[in-house]
């Protein structure tokens, strides 16, 4: 699922290389795939339709950028448009003359009470606001008690519970208390209600009228399906939303609801909930959700960074090396080091929606960062010939390396097996078209030119020279497709771990890398 869209787009576009510009037919051909991808991410149908129309407008007639394949170009357009739609800048919460009132509304179980406590805590902590929380949920059993307990946990004041008081009366009491006791902000947590429940919608209208909130936030679940449109529209019409808080973004839902709600209400997504704890609240980053909706995680932003900082020609040459299926221990080492620079395995996993749950699986399988360290140690214990010519490793050499690195021959065998797999993969990729690899390399090299240099220096100059010669000798017109499959995490290949096929992969090393801007 991870990069199904890009794979499919790659397929659609494979015949299209070398063309000058994107024709209507080209774009039509991919719009179906984009449509399915968005629908599977739970973007509401009417929103999808509008969006596709927009994309067509944007894409048709665009010049195909040299060195970039059309699939990638269209994905970029889709992604940018998505980011655009989701709202470009983080919208701040507003305040009025004290006491400001925030009204939290939404469906049953969407996370209103938890989010109320999160926001209250955040504002009292970071902005030193004096906050009073009040629960107007007189329906759900123990709902008021829930907020009271959250108040205790977070150290935020809550309005005393008065049995039998109606929501509007509680509202008035909360405002009175706030005025008397000098609170900056009153947060009104309301009962969950269905958008089609007129009685309950009337109730919240009355609360709104009585409290004149500066923020009226719809709290909505990131897992919401097509109903997001109906819910967001109904609440917006009834109470006039000022923004949206998207909850359970820590889950693995693609989060298309965010796009639906933003599209139909025009209201910004101000905050996201990323866990059950009261500090698990974050500001909204349109690009992250966009990548997630497209099923590409942060790969898109990684690629962007890479595109900015990595010289396309260099990357092409690098790809050529892979094309030949030359992948030695030096390359593997580089990959590992790149990965740890990116924050290690765990961070990488986290960046990839849908893979976040695999962190634990990977840890279980013993594939944590210490595992990577061990593998590094093995490579460091090899001679330069051994690193370049993996076939040299015989039983005797393995024993020596094991002793040198404090590992076992078995570990060495495992590593050798992984390298083999990488090589096989490289060869496979040759059939698939080389460009794919390049983008992946770019990902990992993005902004890391100086570190690359340092790394290169730790390697053998002769080997480098040889690499250089190789690189010079090949080349060719390669179109990078950073999203296509074929990569793989170093060292994960043969361990029966999760299929990480689409993670960016890097190999190769260059001593003379210059930091050059593309375009």
């Amino acid at each position, binding site marked *: 699922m991870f990069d199904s869209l890009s794979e499919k787009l790659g397929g659609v576009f494979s015949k299209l290389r070398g063309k000058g510009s994107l024709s209507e037919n080209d774009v039509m051909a991919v719009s179906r795939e984009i*449509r*399915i991808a968005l*629908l*599977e*991410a*739970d973007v*509401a*149908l009417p929103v999808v339709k509008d969006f596709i129309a927009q994309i067509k407008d944007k894409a048709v007639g665009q010049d195909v950028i040299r060195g970039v394949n059309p699939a990638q170009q269209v994905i970029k357009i889709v992604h940018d448009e998505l980011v655009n739609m989701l709202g470009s800048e983080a919208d701040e919460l507003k305040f009025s003359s004290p006491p400001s009132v925030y009204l939290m509304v939404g*469906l*049953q*179980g*969407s*996370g209103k*009470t938890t989010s109320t406590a999160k926001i209250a805590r955040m504002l009292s902590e970071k902005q030193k606001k004096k906050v009073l929380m009040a629960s107007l949920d*007189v*329906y*759900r*059993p*123990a*709902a008021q*008690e*829930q*907020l*009271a*307990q*959250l108040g205790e*946990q977070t150290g935020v004041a809550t309005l005393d519970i008065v*049995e*039998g008081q*109606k929501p509007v009366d509680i509202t008035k009491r909360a405002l009175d208390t706030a005025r008397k006791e000098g609170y900056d902000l009153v947060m009104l947590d309301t009962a969950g209600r*269905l*958008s*089609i429940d007129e009685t*309950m919608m009337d109730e919240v209208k009355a609360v709104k009228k009585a409290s004149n909130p500066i923020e009226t936030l719809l709290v909505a*679940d990131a*897992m*919401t*399906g*097509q*109903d997001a449109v*109906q*819910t967001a529209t*109904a609440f917006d019409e009834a109470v006039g939303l000022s923004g949206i808080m998207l909850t*359970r973004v*820590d*889950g*693995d*839902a*693609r989060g298309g*609801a965010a796009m639906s709600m933003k599209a139909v209400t025009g209201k910004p997504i101000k905050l996201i909930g990323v*866990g*059950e*704890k009261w500090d698990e609240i974050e500001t909204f980053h349109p690009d992250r959700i966009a990548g997630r909706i497209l099923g590409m995680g942060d790969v898109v932003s990684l690629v962007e960074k890479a595109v900015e900082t990595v010289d396309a020609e260099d990357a092409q040459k690098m790809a050529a090396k892979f094309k030949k299926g030359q992948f030695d221990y030096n390359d593997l080492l580089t990959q590992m080091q790149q990965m740890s620079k990116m924050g290690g395995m765990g961070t990488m996993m986290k960046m990839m929606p*849908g893979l*976040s*749950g695999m*962190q*634990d*699986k990977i840890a*279980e399988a013993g594939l944590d960062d210490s595992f990577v360290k061990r593998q590094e140690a093995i490579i460091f214990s090899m001679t330069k010939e051994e690193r370049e010519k993996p076939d040299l490793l015989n039983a005797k050499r393995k024993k020596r390396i094991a002793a040198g690195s404090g590992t076992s021959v078995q570990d060495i065998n495992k590593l050798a097996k992984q390298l083999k797999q990488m090589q096989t993969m490289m060869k496979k990729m040759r059939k698939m078209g080389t460009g794919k690899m390049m983008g992946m390399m770019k990902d990992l090299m993005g902004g890391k030119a100086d570190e690359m240099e340092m790394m290169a220096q730790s390697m053998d100059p002769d080997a480098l020279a040889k690499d250089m010669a190789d690189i010079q000798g090949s080349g060719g017109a390669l179109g990078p497709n950073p999203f296509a499959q074929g990569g793989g995490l170093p060292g994960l290949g043969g361990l029966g771990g999760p299929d990480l096929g689409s993670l960016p992969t890097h190999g190769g090393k260059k001593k003379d890398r210059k930091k050059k801007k593309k375009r």
Partner: protein
Amino acid sequence: MVFWRKKKNAKEQEEQEREDKIVHPPGEPAIEPSIDEDDPKLDPETEHELEENGSEIIEDLDETPVPKHTAQDDTKEHEDLSDHSEEGGWLSRLTTGLSKSTNKFTQGLTDLVTKKKLDQDMLDELEELLIAADLGPKTAMKVVEDFSQGRFGKDISQEEVQEALADSIAAILKPVALPFNIQKPDNGPFVILMCGVNGAGKTTTIGKLAQNFKDQYGYKVMMAAGDTFRAAAVEQLEVWSKRTNSTLIKKDVGADAASVAFEAYAKAKEEGADVLLIDTAGRLQNKANLMEELAKIIRVLKKQDESLPHEVVLVLDSTTGQNAFSQLETFKEMVHVSGLVVTKLDGSAKGGVLIGLADQFGVPVYAVGVGEAVNDLQPFEPQHYARSLVGLSG
């Protein structure tokens, strides 16, 4: 089905709440669980991610007494019963909910029939209507393909389109529309473990099920407050236990959920309860450690009896889109979900993802939630559901 109570009546609401508040007198003697050395020491490594709770298995165990049935209650129940006739069955309730939200759907279908011949455009439109009901692009395509078999190019009326589509959908759902099959073992209660993501409706569904089991079979029901994490989760279940005259077994917040389940089972067995409903904290399926915590509850129960729990019910919010696939898949893999309860079908969401789930997993749908009150739980009726979905009445 027996009856339900309309909830929007403010006076009654208040009354019920007041009642809820008074039932549990403070200072009730805590019941000491008898724990011997052989009791499973729960592996401490699986703790709720969000809480550092190194709780011991032996902790204060409270039992909420069954409240006395007052004359006032009787009158109230009587009222509830008589109320029912006016409201109609769940079908009408569900239909109201669905039809409010199927307006557009029906509208779309109405547009459809102005064209007479079933052509690709019409099929595309049908597909879109199904997508808008959360079937997902793939399932929608499949349903429409099945539907078009033998009909393509032929003249067809709106009614026929709706009927045929409803039949196609109902046919997919029929195999999974199974009622709870409660077979109380001789040596203890029938144990149902409730699980699901946060806010899906687990606790509420437990309340509704308890009422249902009482009404339908006269069962003695016990509840275990296994959500030891969320604020006031225990209090919430406590209210439901009182509403339904069920016994509640609970421990302190932060206690190990597995130990609550373990002790609740022992207690239920000892007291001759017919059914034990175990509540759990909500958890997102991609959190491996929380899923492991759930698996542990089952492991610990199995130490009492290999056949436990008899049912593992995944509570699914009908508002959920395609993520429901991931939910069912993971929960099924981790804790062998034996059935579903789909909640909030009284809302505007149509829960069409169910159709894909039925097709792919074949897990039974035991009941649907159609409101927040104690009787708002109903058997899943595929024919009716499918008809409502395409804009036909019951």
